[in-house]
């Protein structure tokens, strides 16, 4: 009998990350497959550091990381991971005199997409984030929310197998957030999407699984419904929020 094993695109074992004397991640274990995975946690919990580690920006101090079945510590495999990776940093730097199209195209080229596929892919990415009418606008003329959408466009231009988004909805209005969650769900059908966010409603609407980080450790890993069930007695305006605060309080007790 053949047993189908769900492909885990992200495997992290015993991940420790520190900068100087400060330990930022303290023994993280995670396995993430296809779908939308939410990273929750208070400021300083280590969410951004975890995403930057998965984005192959910085290697782990200790522990192992496997992405898309490849070892990012090996230069050749790291390059292959990056071809299939999309990343939106928390602080998106941009080139003011680039147009929207030029910015997304630039990173599509740096991801080593086949040259013939680049321009149609850039058009599609720009359309998916609702910026078709601003494709030829210079980035310095865009609002904060539009810039965020440009960042999302460059992250999805190569149809990544692993998509990492750090606070993607910052600056987006409610309608744009609704559209963005639909986009996440669509991408999550084929890829692994990891979203770091403070917004509980984003997690509730888009994520099939979540991890709650606190002080560099995973204090909860499960579905939104499971977190909701833990919410009795917690503070918050929604069941998920109450689960969040209750679990954090328990972890700190």
């Amino acid at each position, binding site marked *: 009998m053949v047993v189908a094993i769900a492909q885990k695109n992200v495997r992290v074992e015993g991940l420790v*990350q520190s900068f100087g004397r400060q330990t930022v991640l303290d023994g993280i274990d995670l396995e993430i497959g296809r779908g939308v995975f939410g990273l929750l946690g208070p400021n300083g919990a280590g969410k951004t550091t975890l995403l930057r580690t998965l984005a192959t920006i*910085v290697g*782990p101090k200790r522990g192992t990381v496997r992405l898309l079945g490849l070892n990012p510590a090996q230069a050749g495999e790291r390059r292959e991971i990056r071809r299939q990776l999309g*990343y939106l940093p928390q602080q998106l730097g941009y080139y003011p005199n680039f147009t929207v199209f030029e910015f997304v195209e*630039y990173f599509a080229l*740096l991801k*080593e997409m086949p040259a013939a596929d680049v321009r149609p892919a850039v058009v*599609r990415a720009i359309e998916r984030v609702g910026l078709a009418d601003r494709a030829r606008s210079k980035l310095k003329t865009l609002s904060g929310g539009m810039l965020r959408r440009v960042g999302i466009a460059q992250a999805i231009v190569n149809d990544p197998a692993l998509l990492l988004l750090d606070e993607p909805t910052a600056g987006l209005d409610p309608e744009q957030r609704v559209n963005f969650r639909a986009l996440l769900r669509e991408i999550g059908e084929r890829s692994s999407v990891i979203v770091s966010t403070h917004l509980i409603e984003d997690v509730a609407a888009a994520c099939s699984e979540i991890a709650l980080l606190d002080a560099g450790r995973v204090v909860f890993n499960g579905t939104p419904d499971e977190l909701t069930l833990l919410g009795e007695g917690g503070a918050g305006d929604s069941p998920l929020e109450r689960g969040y605060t209750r679990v954090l309080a328990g972890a700190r007790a």
Partner: protein
Amino acid sequence: MKHDNLESGRDALPLTAHDVDLDRVWMNVAAEIWPEPIGAIERSARRLLGSPGLARALVTTPSLVLSWLLASVALLVAGVVATQTTGEPWIALLLPALAGVGVAYAYGPGIDPAFELGQTMAVSTRMVLLTRVCAVFGLNALLGLLATLFAPGIAGLTLGWLLPMAMIAALGLAAATSARSATTGVGVALAVWGLIVLGSAYGTRDLATAVQSDALLPLYALGTLLCGALTLFMTNGNRWNRGFLWS
């Protein structure tokens, strides 16, 4: 042509809009009209480098944009005029400083606002850096050669500036990559070159000593090699798993 039945008549009809993937047509149209055409320099760079990504990174180098080049040319023209009028080899003294600044400003976390994003790209930041540095240094060397052709009276110094230029450029780059700051690289390059020029002129009372003395050549060569090695070390992607941020 007549057809006896509706079925064969329908087969003979031309394609309708239902048979055309309008989404794909639109994407191809937009892909043609939204971007600017790729320039001749970038097309040549693509062929030379074998990488469209590297070629695009090259033509967007801050110290290769038109305004920067025009400023460099203006500075060199001023240097040529000063050399012609005073008889001092100002142009030869200027070239290492110019290259040091240009190379330090080629690339890095202090100069590229999207550097963090660049670190997640398949084309590594190190390749971008090395490609840009080679281009900036090569262009500065070419401009320098042209400038010295217009500066008579310094025969024998035509290439005397090249090794100091290599060393100061390598020093600026090493400082910029070590400190993760282009400004630091510029400052170190200019400060060290100033010290070398003034220090070597102290005994001889000749500013040209820095680009004329054979005794300094081994020091320039050694400095270039050491600074180059430091740059390669600081940008080594194999240090990734020790938590450093160049990739």
